């Protein structure tokens, strides 16, 4: 089969559509989770959704819908535990991890199903996705993007400073629940693409990558959506081509491609932050005493020394000294 034939196959086109929408939606909610320092919440919900899938397999209902319901219940449970404040958010997450996974495996066994059936939900099977599943994926993903981007001023404010948001008259609890429910929906959307155990990667890794380079929330959000889409469509295409030579699963390929993006970007981010620190203006006031530095180098743009704003002038950092131009000579600052 030639690549052209492969990509004109209906199953491949369904897979591409699902990958496109999942890649666009997952980082939206991932951005809010990372902002709240709940990056692992997607993982916790993924584990809870395993129980949901098992309930579906056991009862004969569609596992997608039972997973949505159980994941939403889990998300609300996390929110309640977090709000009551007695248990740390991460402890609550850990409890859900274990309970969700154990419950799922137990129920699958009870139903007499083989582990292989659960496996396609654990690690994704985007190429076996049905027409109905594609429609559900598209609708839910669109919902996540519309709500996540449309309410971004409110969701940003609530995550940034909940107390300020409350005094500003925002219904903080409502918005927290919106984020939790959207996270649960995202998990089940991404379930068919990358699988429940890797869902969180598609939510968090693009955000981690984009914030290496960005300074604002909006830029982080948009860049993460672009990166997520590139990773998920790119990963699917790579795995399709690689499948001529070997058995390559799309889910892990998507996640590894996304991680590769982070590995490439991280050194750039480290360098950018280092550079920004070097060039941060000196906050102290210029010294009153006048110390002339004896030195025969002419500083200027492109002289090779870092120029740092200081009060109303520029200091050049030179061998651990700060040289400020003054008339025909340089002062020590």
């Amino acid at each position, binding site marked *: 089969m030639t690549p052209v034939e492969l990509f004109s196959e209906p199953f491949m086109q369904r897979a591409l559509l699902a990958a496109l929408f999942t890649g666009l939606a997952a980082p939206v909610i991932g951005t809010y989770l990372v*902002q709240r320092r709940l990056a692992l919440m997607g993982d916790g919900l993924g584990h809870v959704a395993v129980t949901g899938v098992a309930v579906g397999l056991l009862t004969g209902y569609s596992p997608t819908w039972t997973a949505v319901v159980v994941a939403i219940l889990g998300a609300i449970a996390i929110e309640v535990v977090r709000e009551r404040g007695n248990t740390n958010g991460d402890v609550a997450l850990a409890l859900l991890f274990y309970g969700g996974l154990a419950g799922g495996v137990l129920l699958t066994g009870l139903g007499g199903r083989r582990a292989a059936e659960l496996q396609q939900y654990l690690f994704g099977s985007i190429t076996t996705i049905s027409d109905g599943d594609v429609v559900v994926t598209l609708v839910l993903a669109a919902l996540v993007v519309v709500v996540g981007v449309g*309410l971004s001023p409110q969701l940003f404010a609530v995550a940034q*400073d909940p*107390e300020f*948001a*409350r*005094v500003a008259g925002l219904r903080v609890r409502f918005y927290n629940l919106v984020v939790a429910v959207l996270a649960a929906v995202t998990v089940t959307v991404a379930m068919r693409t990358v699988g429940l155990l890797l869902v969180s990667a598609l939510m968090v890794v693009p955000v981690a990558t984009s914030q290496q380079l960005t*300074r*604002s929330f909006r830029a*982080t959000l948009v860049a993460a959506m672009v990166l997520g889409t590139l990773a998920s469509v790119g990963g699917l295409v790579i795995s399709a081509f690689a499948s001529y030579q070997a058995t390559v699963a799309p889910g892990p390929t998507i996640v590894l491609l996304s991680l590769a993006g982070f590995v490439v970007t991280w050194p750039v981010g480290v360098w950018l932050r280092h550079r920004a620190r070097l060039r941060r203006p000196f906050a102290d006031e210029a010294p009153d005493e006048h110390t002339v530095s004896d030195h025969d180098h002419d500083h200027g743009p492109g002289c090779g020394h870092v120029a740092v704003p200081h009060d109303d002038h520029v200091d050049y950092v030179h061998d651990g000294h700060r040289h400020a131009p003054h008339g025909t000579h340089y002062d020590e600052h």
Partner: protein
Amino acid sequence: MPVIEVRDGAVALSGRPVLRGIDLRVERGEFVALMGANGSGKSTLVRALTGLRPLSRGGITLFGTPLEDFHEWHRIGFVPQRSGAASGVPASVREVVSSGRLTRRRLLRPLGAADRRAIDDAIELVGLGARARDGVSTLSGGQQQRVLIARALAGDPELFFLDEPTAGVDLPNQKVLTDALAALKERGASIVLVAHELGPLATLVERAVVMRDGRVAYDGPPIPDHVVHEPWLGEAHGHHHHARHESSYARDHAPHVRSPLEGRP
């Protein structure tokens, strides 16, 4: 009509009474400093006034409306204590200040021209115009505090609550803060600020309310910082204070720690 009125206010945290018998009136345009030692309840009082802590008895009215029925949050500007940790995702100064405008924005509407102007003015007033696009986490502590003030300013409120705006802020930044608050006072805003020490703000404060052990110990013209922490302040029998002070019966707000071998004085 006072902008704030508290009658017999009390706050309990998990059943333990923290604030008791608070009566307070703040008139329009007043600049009030809530002072007192750590743990005296001054921050709790501000949290009660902003609705973050429910009262266990008594009542609060803001602009003549009981707090539980109060919905005109755009009239309130709140500057919380600066939390040390920035959030997990970068946010620019402009974005943080913009969230202060949410009190006046409708859902799902983009920023209008008036919103943009208010946000720019607020950033300009705290002297951060050149850094509006920078990430908040790259700013110094004092500059971050100024961002929080600009955020409260962006909603054009009439009544400001500031919780320890000068804590951990260096002197140059305190001066910028003082200038910003002076500009607010000029516009006729009412200001209630919590402070451990006033520093440069002393020139603006018209009235000091000193808290001690959850009660109002003093309410009147501003007093010097060191007097606030004198043990006799607010004692019911103030005229005895010298005698009590010398016999070292004076109760501090913190329990004394003595080793078992140390005799009572």
